[in-house]
């Protein structure tokens, strides 16, 4: 049974609702590590992750009055980070264009165009082993919705119930997506290992 935030946290939330920035600062410092880690695993990029986590905390401040007192603050913040991540991906997807002026020589038999990979390499995330790098890459290959569930369930160690709360999806959808994500990752890693 969940009874909302612990007493000291409840008081910090109450004070934040009344406009006390320093109370909110305490909450930010309490959860910055978890939220930043979530954002890093979703984006695969420390810079984007910092932007997303910061924007999420600012959204949290702007909407703190809408926070339901019986919920957990951390679950609420997880939901905001995921929403900011998905919003940003949507925006960036709409912005990705390849200029028509990039010359493609039609007279050549094969036409290739190098599109730079803008994501930070796994080295930027201080991954220690080759295995961790492969795992990270396989995670990043997943569609965003599946990646979100994998990160929340396995890295953030959320329960199915919390996943439902954070994503707003029905339990059946959460389970089936998580299942597909696990199988997809296993297939990708298996394929890479076979190629190696």
């Amino acid at each position, binding site marked *: 049974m969940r009874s909302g935030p612990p007493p000291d946290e409840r008081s910090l939330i109450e004070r934040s609702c009344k406009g006390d920035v320093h109370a909110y600062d305490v909450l930010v410092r309490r959860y910055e590590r978890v939220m930043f880690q979530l954002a890093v695993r979703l984006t695969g990029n420390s810079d984007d992750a910092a932007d997303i986590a910061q924007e999420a905390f600012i959204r949290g401040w702007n909407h703190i009055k809408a926070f339901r007192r019986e919920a957990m603050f951390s679950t609420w913040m997880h939901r905001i980070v995921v929403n900011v991540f998905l919003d940003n991906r949507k925006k960036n997807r709409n912005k990705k264009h390849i200029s028509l002026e990039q010359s493609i020589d039609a007279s050549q038999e094969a036409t290739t165009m190098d599109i730079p990979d803008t994501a930070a390499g796994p080295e930027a995330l201080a991954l220690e082993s080759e295995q961790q790098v492969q795992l990270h890459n396989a995670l990043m290959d997943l569609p965003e919705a599946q990646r979100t569930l*994998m990160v929340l369930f396995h890295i953030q160690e959320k329960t199915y119930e919390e996943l439902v709360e954070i994503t707003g999806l029905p339990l059946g959808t959460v389970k089936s997506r998580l299942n597909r994500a696990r*199988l997809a990752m296993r297939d990708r890693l298996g394929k890479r290992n076979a190629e190696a």
Partner: protein
Amino acid sequence: MDCTTWRECASDHIDGTLPTKLAREADAHVLICAQCAADMAEIQMLCADLTALPAPEVPLYFSDNILSKIEAQRESAKEPWWRAARLGITTTLAGATVASFVWMQAHPIVDAPNRIRAGAGASRRIAAPAPVAAPELNTRWMLHADAATPTFDVELTLLSKSAGTAKCTITGDPHAYRFTLAPGVANHFRIPMSLVQNENIATVDIQWTSGDTTHKRIEHHPLSPESPTPRRQSFGIRDLPISDAAREVSSRYNIPITLQDIPETTRIRVNPIHATAEEALTAALAGTGCTLVTTPDGLYISGK
């Protein structure tokens, strides 16, 4: 159970959330199907590896930046008129600058006196200060922080031939301190500091009158002999009124700063990377028309 059915319920099987009957069927399937058994083992390993991924380090000043952005957001919400009026003010200032240039061309100043006191010989002038009509008031503040009741010993010297009066107010202290000043000599006073003990800096607003002329200025005096921890709320993050920015610089670099005739609408942004208060303010004040002078008693910023 066949392979397709097992793959559909693989997660539930691994997590142990399948109903008993289905769980038995799934167990039986992986006992006879090597491929699904291998998949199950690999997924279990993959899940364990994901949980063991190292946690990335949070960037420096992460939460500080959030707080600064929230404060900047609140500040801008408070002053929507300022942004709306900015264009008009900029246009007016530009017009005034052109007019004053034309006036100065027509009426050149033959001999501009140095308004900084004689003892400032070691100072480095950033830009030539303009002349002022009001008599200069020299101030010297001696902090006695170790006493049971911290006090400021104040020395005020009015560089004028006639007597005058001065009124000092200190932020956080409800009292206004009024003094009568004899001309040309050092006048000594004592101000108790008990009401501003929680601050790391005293902001003193001084108004003085001599003859028909009234003048005022703001002085920031650090209250600790050691450099205090800088207040992190806005330094280097957003534009501040010059007086507020000077207060933060005074606090961060532990140096007294005096401000006189500062335009109230001008805002500056101080970059905290600078090693000294003088460097930080020189960069921040560029283009504002204000002058910065280093004196033996600290920094002096003038808006004229």
